[in-house]
């Protein structure tokens, strides 16, 4: 019996929430609009920081140290050098590109450039050195690796023992340093901006819902006077808040498609373009879940807190 009553009550609360959402059309509409703005802010900061993250990762992958090996060096000597570098804790990977491989890569890369291929054929011999490409785990670790390389006499360029003809780290040092700083800065800033945006959205939503419930404060009084328990009075407002959130979340997701599409086209002029659309589509399920859940949570919690004010007295 108790159980039946419980479900009847839940059913009544949900129904009352829906009816109220529908009949208070203008209030619901404005609450939904404000929540769209809030959710849009949350979604775009998440999307942009996630996008920046992958973009920076791509950039990071482009950083490396190339060791150009002397022509005279034998393959076993090169491979033993590779092993020595690989044991360093900072090193993620070392890849070896033989002279033949380098030549083939070069030909493939320039297959449409007849003049270069012609010049290459004219030389006859393979002019390209073998290389060891070192990737570090973190951009900041390149300096350490480079120091290690220059302290080893067998590795340092020019030494009699050396099989290394050139290490290109110092050429890239400035670029690598700058990039490392930018990456760290953007990551920090992204975190702060995300937190701020989410904070602002919560405040805006909470205040809007508080106003909506302020309008209904007399009704809350009447409901209590007729004998409504706090849960029964509060329930429909929370359901209404959830509905604001759900509707706003769906509209936000629908709006995002054309916005990211537009952004893609207008930023195409830059190198590569900011392809948020691709990112949005690729991670749709995740974004969908985050936005819907944020909408529901924002609406429900705001309503719950806003009604509480009118339920404190006996």
């Amino acid at each position, binding site marked *: 019996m108790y159980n039946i*009553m419980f479900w*009847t*009550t839940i059913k*009544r609360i949900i129904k009352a929430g829906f*009816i*109220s959402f529908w*009949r*208070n059309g203008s209030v619901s509409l404005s609450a939904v609009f404000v929540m769209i703005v809030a959710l849009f802010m949350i979604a775009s900061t998440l999307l942009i920081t996630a996008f920046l993250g992958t973009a920076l990762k791509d950039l990071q992958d482009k950083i490396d140290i190339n060791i150009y090996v002397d022509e005279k060096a034998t393959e076993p000597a090169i491979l033993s050098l590779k092993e020595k570098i690989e044991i360093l804790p900072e090193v993620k990977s070392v890849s070896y590109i033989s002279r033949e491989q380098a030549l083939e890569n070069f030909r493939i890369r320039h297959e449409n450039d007849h003049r270069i291929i012609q010049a290459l054929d004219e030389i006859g011999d393979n002019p390209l050195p073998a290389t060891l490409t070192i990737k570090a785990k973190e951009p900041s670790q390149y300096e350490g690796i480079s120091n290690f390389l220059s302290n080893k006499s067998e590795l340092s360029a020019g030494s009699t023992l050396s099989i290394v003809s050139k290490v290109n780290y110092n050429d890239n040092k400035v670029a690598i340093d700058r990039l490392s700083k930018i990456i760290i800065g953007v990551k920090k800033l992204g975190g702060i901006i995300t937190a701020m945006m989410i904070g602002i959205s919560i405040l805006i939503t909470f205040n809007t819902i508080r106003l909506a419930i302020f309008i209904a404060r*007399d*009704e809350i*009084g*009447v*409901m*209590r*006077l*007729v*004998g*409504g*328990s*706090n849960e*029964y009075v509060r329930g429909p407002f929370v359901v209404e808040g959830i509905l604001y959130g759900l509707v706003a979340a769906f509209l936000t997701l629908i709006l995002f498609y054309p916005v990211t599409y537009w952004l893609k086209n207008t930023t195409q002029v830059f190198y590569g373009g900011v392809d948020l659309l691709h990112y949005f589509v690729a991670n749709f399920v995740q974004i969908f879940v985050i936005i819907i859940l944020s909408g529901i949570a924002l609406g429900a919690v705001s309503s719950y807190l806003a009604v509480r004010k009118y339920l404190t*007295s*006996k």
Partner: protein
Amino acid sequence: MIYFDNVSKSYQDGTVALNGVTLSIKQGEFVSIVGHSGAGKTTLVKLLLGEDNPTTGSVSFDSVNIKKIKAKDMPELRRRIGVIFQDFRLLPNKTAYENVAFAMEVAGKADEEIASDVPHVLELVDLTKKMWNFPRQLSGGELQRVAIARAIVNQPDLIIADEPTGNLDPINTYEIVQILKKINDMGTTVILTTHNKGVVEALGKRVITMDHGRIIRDDSTGKYAL
């Protein structure tokens, strides 16, 4: 059934709303409380509904001190008391039917019971035709009849009507009083606050006269004596 034991109520600004009121009302009585504005009628009602607590003294309903009822048990008490106000206090976004049904829903009545009782009660107050109208589509008299329907639908032990005819014309006033009388005839205790002399005299029931927070007269078949 209801007992006010030496009740005083003063507010923070120093106003004394009730001053040593002792009063008892038996089951099935029809009591009119009359007095000028500020005599303490509404305060009396508020204390009875637990909306406010007395400064000194105690108010009990069926031997239970209302002040000592816990917040979570308050709705239980309010479902046993039907209240009718001068300003109707209906839910504006619910139809007449839904307003009455709401009182049954909060009391945890079954859907079938609601579906059969609500039309019946609305018929009792002659509102069958306007069952699906919203409050904004109803006249003052009709609104008050919806409020009465809502107050009686749970068959409460007590009906409190706080100036129910204050906003109504004489014809509607007469009708509302007749309905209240009918409810009382069926055994429900009714407390009516009013300053309408005609109403009180036509009823010929117990009249309590208040002035400046005190009871100055209590006549069993009273007259309006102000």
